């Protein structure tokens, strides 16, 4: 199968005066349709790597390809669209927009695409929330849920980006 994500000689150095190198010339590829996990001791650079793959952070040297695109060559708008349509995040800490309800948080990536909501999208979001047992709290404000529910919700938020 074709590689969906490919990293070429990616390294990351934090700091300007005191330099801390976290990633050392990493070559890495993920197959399309595969399920991967990255395991390592704390401080080994897992988050850094994921942030770079997720286009939230930029590598100091090296290139990242998502699909066929070289991420470093993409403009701000293209990058925003890539995050919106191709990538999904579940953060280490629970990031939801407290101003919106759980359901609205799930639908947010879809709205960012600029499409208007129709019944089938709403139904799909409902199904996704139902799948993780959040139907009861879907109309609660996002900051009004338990920790576990929040995690589940951010997972759904991530999953719904793919749709």
């Amino acid at each position, binding site marked *: 199968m074709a590689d969906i994500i490919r990293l070429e000689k990616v390294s990351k150095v934090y700091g300007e005066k005191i330099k801390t190198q976290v990633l050392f010339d990493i070559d890495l590829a993920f197959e399309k349709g595969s399920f991967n996990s990255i395991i390592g001791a704390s401080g080994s650079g897992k988050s850094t790597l994921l942030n770079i793959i997720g286009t939230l952070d930029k590598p100091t040297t090296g290139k990242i390809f998502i699909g066929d695109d070289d991420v470093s060559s993409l403009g701000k708008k293209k990058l925003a669209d890539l995050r919106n349509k191709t990538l999904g995040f579940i953060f280490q800490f629970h*990031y939801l927009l407290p101003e919106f309800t759980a359901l609205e948080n799930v639908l947010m990536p879809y709205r*960012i695409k*600029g499409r208007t909501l129709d019944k089938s999208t709403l139904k799909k979001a409902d199904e996704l929330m139902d799948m993780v047992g959040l139907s009861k709290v879907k109309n609660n404000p996002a900051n009004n849920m338990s920790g576990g529910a929040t995690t589940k919700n951010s997972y759904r938020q991530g999953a719904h980006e793919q749709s």
Partner: protein
Amino acid sequence: MRLSFKIASRFLRFNLGQTFLIVTGIAIGVSVQVFIGLLIQGLQQDLINTTIGSSSQVTISATKDSGTIRSWEDIVKDIKQNEQGVNQISPAADGAAFLLGEDSSDPVIVRGWIFEEAEGIYAIEEKLIEGKVPGEGEVIIGLNLKDELGLSVGDDIKLATANGRIQDYKISGFYDFRVSSINSSWVITDIKTAQGLFDYGDEVTSIEMQVEDVFAADEIAASIESRLNNEELIIDNWKAQNQELLSGLNGQSISSIMIQVFVMVSVVLGISSVLAITVMQKSKEIGILKAMGIRDGDASRIFLLQGLILGVFGAMLGVALGLGLSVAFTTFALNPDGTPIIAFYINYGFIALSGGIAILASLVASLIPARKSLKLNPIEVIRNG
């Protein structure tokens, strides 16, 4: 756009207390603006009304040599037909005389009017406090002269002119122009009576006018001058005669504009600093939205829309407050006789302008946070939690 608006309004509703505070801040600025602006404009209106409202604003008079205006009917007709800005026009036959008392005499100015025409300028009916408008051979005199000489309606007075004519006239009433120099010197009579007293024949000494826009009096005077093109006539206007009043009015306008500018500046600073803080508050949300792929343009539009919403609500509340203040001022700040010190004056254009400036200022103020949001990098937000 719709998404930005939804997020903006949700942000504002989420921090309702803070939103209310900002709106109140803008509203107070706008209300001060509206209140002071209307107050000063009303004051000016009042001042102009009392000083030149009941007097001639453009006057055609004869030069000293000729003394009287010949064929004045033609001039009046010409101006009535062709001069746009002239509201009222009235001829007058004036002359200096002495009012002879028992043991003293007072210098007076005898003014002969056609009352149907003069009413438009002087509103004599309103100023008459006793008696009636004089007919032929009758006069009305001012309150000060009446008190001084102890006269009453029906009494006779003796007028003496410079060329030695002395004649008796009957007092038909008393007026009060609320200007003591007029009240103690004008003896008002019918135009025929004055023409007879001074031997003017059918001629008059001046033609008096009121104009639509008092501040255009000088232009109208110039236009009349070129129209008549007569060297024997002098065309004067109130602006040339009241330089001091004019510069006073100007000074007042400038100082009121200064006050309004500073109020506006403080409003803009207030809005922009508060909005700048809201970007800091919402940086986490903006970071999440950016991670979800919101475009920079949409993200900064959130703040512009917040500024717009705050501006619109602030302006509406401010205009309402400002009008309320004005009404309260005219209701509670009264002269001893119960009339408001400054009459309530509404200038819709000015109110709309104040509101518009506030909305524009809010938009401009929100440019700063909008720009700031462009620079916000999602990773900073996510890394720093």
